[in-house]
C-alpha cells in the first residue's frame, strides 16, 4: 500500500533530478534506488503483514498476499528493466528524467491495481497506468511511426476505457455499489443490466490485454513505439492488465463463472490461433515479438477461463517467466539498428554470452522444460484440466505452443547456424553481458524451482 505513495513521490523527485544531476548515469542510479526502496517497502509489507503507514481506504484498497507477490514480481522486472535498458531510455528522449518520472507514475498506478477491491480503484489504477504510456509511446517526437503508434494507442486505449466505464455504470445500476464483494450476493443471478455490464467490461479488458478479436492495435503500437518502451509495455503493463482482469473476474464475477466461461474460452481459442499463426509470417523480430505477446496473452487467458488456485499460482509464475524473458530479448533488440531476423545472424560467434542469454529467454518463451516458461504453461494447462469439460481448449493450447516453437527457433537458428553478413560486430558493455546472464540464470532457477514463487501465496 505504501508503494503507491512512495512511487508517486519518487516520480516527482525523478522529474526534478534533471536539474540536480548533469550526468544521465546518476539519474539512472537514482531510479534504481527508487525501485529498490519500493521492493523493500513491499517486501516488508508482505513479510510482516502490515504496511509501514496504514491508510484507511474504506475497503477500496486491500493488498492481499497475492497482490503483494504480484507487485514484487513487477518491481523486480522493473529493476531488471532499468538496469538492462537504462542507457536506451537516455537515448530515447531529450531528457531522460521525464521518462523515468513517467515510469514511476506508472508504477504508482500498478500498486493501485495490485490491491483494488472497488471498481473506482480499478478505473483509477488502469488510467494512471495508461496515460503516461501514451506519452512514452510517442516519446520519439520526430519519428512518424512513433507518432502513429501513440495516436493509435491513445484512441484505442480511451475507447476501451469508455466501454469499461459503461460496463461499470450498468453494473452499479444493478448492484448499487462499486465494491467487488457486493457483486457476489444474489447467488450469481445474471440480470440483463449485469450481463450487459459484464460483456462491456470483458470487451474492454480484452482490449487492454490484447486478446483477439480486440488485438489489432497491438502489432502496430508495439512496432511503432521506441523499442525500450515496447519492452516495458509488452511485459510489465501487460501483466498488470492481466492481474486486473483476473482479480475482477475472480472476486467480482466469480459466482457467475458458469455464465461467462464459454465466452472467455472462445476468446482464448481465437487469441491462441491468431497470435501464433500470424507470428510465423513475420520477418522483423520486433513485430514477431508483438505477435508472440498476443500468443502468450492467449495462454494467460487460460487462467482467466479457469479461475482456481492453480490458475492464480500459475499466473504469477507466468508473469515472472514471460516478463524476464521478453525484457532480455528486447534489451538486446534495442541495441541493434536493424530489427530483422537476419540481424541476429552469427551472434553466437561474436557475442557468445549474449547469444546464450537470448537463447535461454527464447526457450523459456517457447516453454521448453528447465525454464520458467515450461512450468508457467504447465500450470495454465493444469488449471484448465482441473476445471474439466474443456479438453479441446487444452489440446488447442498445446498445438499452438508447438507452432510457437517454430518462430522462436528461427531466431535461435539465425544466431547459431548462420554466418554474419556484416563485418562490424555489435559491441556490448561488459556489465550488460553479466546482467543478461543473471537474467537468464534467474529464468532457469525459476524453471527448476517454480515453488520459489508458487509457495509464496
Amino acid at each position: 500500500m505504501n508503494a503507491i505513495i512512495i512511487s508517486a513521490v519518487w516520480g516527482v523527485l525523478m522529474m526534478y533530478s534533471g536539474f540536480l544531476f548533469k550526468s544521465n548515469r546518476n539519474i539512472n542510479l537514482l531510479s534504481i534506488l527508487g525501485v529498490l526502496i519500493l521492493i523493500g517497502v513491499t517486501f516488508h509489507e508482505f513479510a510482516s503483514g502490515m504496511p509501514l503507514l496504514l491508510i484507511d481506504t474504506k475497503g477500496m484498497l486491500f493488498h492481499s498476499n497475492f497482490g503483494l507477490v504480484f507487485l514484487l514480481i513487477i518491481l523486480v522486472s522493473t529493476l531488471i528493466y532499468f538496469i538492462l535498458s537504462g542507457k536506451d531510455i537516455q537515448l530515447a528522449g531529450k531528457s531522460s528524467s521525464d521518462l523515468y518520472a513517467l515510469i514511476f507514475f506508472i508504477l504508482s498506478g500498478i500498486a493501485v491495481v495490485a490491491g483494488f477491491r472497488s471498481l473506482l480503484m480499478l478505473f483509477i489504477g488502469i488510467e494512471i497506468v495508461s496515460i503516461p504510456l501514451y506519452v512514452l509511446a510517442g516519446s520519439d517526437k520526430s519519428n512518424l511511426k512513433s507518432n502513429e503508434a501513440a495516436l493509435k494507442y491513445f484512441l484505442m486505449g480511451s475507447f476501451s476505457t469508455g466501454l469499461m466505464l459503461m460496463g461499470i455504470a450498468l453494473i452499479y445500476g444493478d448492484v448499487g455499489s462499486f465494491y467487488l464483494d457486493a457483486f457476489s450476493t444474489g447467488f450469481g443471478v445474471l440480470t440483463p443490466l449485469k450481463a450487459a455490464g459484464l460483456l462491456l467490461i470483458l470487451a474492454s479488458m480484452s482490449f487492454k490485454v490484447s486478446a483477439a478479436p480486440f488485438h489489432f492495435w497491438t502489432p502496430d503500437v508495439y512496432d511503432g513505439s521506441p523499442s525500450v518502451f515496447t519492452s516495458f509495455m509488452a511485459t510489465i503493463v501487460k501483466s498488470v492488465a492481466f492481474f486486473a482482469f483476473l482479480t475482477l473476474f475472480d472476486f467480482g464475477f466469480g459466482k457467475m463463472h458458469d455464465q461467462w466461461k464459454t465466452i472467455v474460452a472462445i476468446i482464448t481459442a481465437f487469441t491462441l490461433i491468431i497470435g501464433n499463426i500470424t507470428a510465423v509470417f513475420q520477418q522483423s523480430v520486433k513485430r514477431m515479438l508483438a505477435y508472440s505477446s498476443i500468443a502468450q496473452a492467449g495462454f494467460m487467458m487460460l487462467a482467466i477461463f479457469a479461475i482456481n488456485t492453480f490458475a492464480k499460482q500459475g499466473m504469477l509464475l507466468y508473469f515472472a517467466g514471460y516478463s524476464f524473458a521478453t525484457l532480455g530479448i528486447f534489451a538486446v533488440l534495442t541495441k541493434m539498428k536493424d530489427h530483422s531476423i537476419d540481424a541476429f545472424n552469427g551472434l553466437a560467434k561474436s557475442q557468445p554470452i549474449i547469444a546464450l542469454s537470448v537463447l535461454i529467454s527464447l526457450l523459456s518463451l517457447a516453454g521448453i522444460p528447465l525454464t520458467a516458461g515450461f512450468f508457467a504453461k504447465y500450470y495454465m494447462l493444469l488449471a484448465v484440466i482441473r476445471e474439466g469439460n474443456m479438453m479441446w481448449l487444452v489440446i488447442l493450447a498445446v498445438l499452438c505452443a508447438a507452432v510457437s516453437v517454430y518462430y522462436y527457433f528461427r531466431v535461435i537458428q539465425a544466431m547459431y547456424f548462420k554466418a554474419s553478413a556484416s563485418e562490424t560486430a555489435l559491441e556490448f558493455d561488459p556489465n550488460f553481458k553479466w546482467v543478461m546472464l543473471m537474467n537468464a540464470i534467474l529464468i532457469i532457477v525459476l524453471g527448476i524451482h517454480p515453488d520459489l514463487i508458487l509457495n509464496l501465496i
Partner: protein
Amino acid sequence: MPINYYIFLSICLFSIGIIGVLTRRNAIIIFMCIELMLNAVNLLLVAFSRMHHAAAYAVDNASLVGAEAQIFVFFIMVVAAAEVTVGLAIIVMLYRNIHSVDINFLNRLKH
C-alpha cells in the same frame, strides 16, 4: 421521471459515440466521440445514483447511499481532462509532422 428514460438517453449517446469512433476519420472528431461516450456514462451514473438514493431515502432519510456514484463522476471528469491533455498533445505532434489529422494517413506501420 422513470429511470428508463435516462437509461435510453445515455445508451443513445453512448452508441452515437461508438458509431462516431468507428466511422469518422478525423482524429479530433474521434476524440470528441470518445468524450461523448464518457459523458453518457456520467449521465447514467448520476441517474442511477439518484435512483439508489431515493430507494434508501424512503427507509432512512440520513442515508448516504448513492453518493459514491457522484464521486465517481468527478473522477471520470478529472481523468477525461488528463486524457484530453495528453491526447491533444499527441494530435498536435502529429499535425506538426504530416500537417493533417486524418487517420487515413496512419498506415505506415501496416506491412
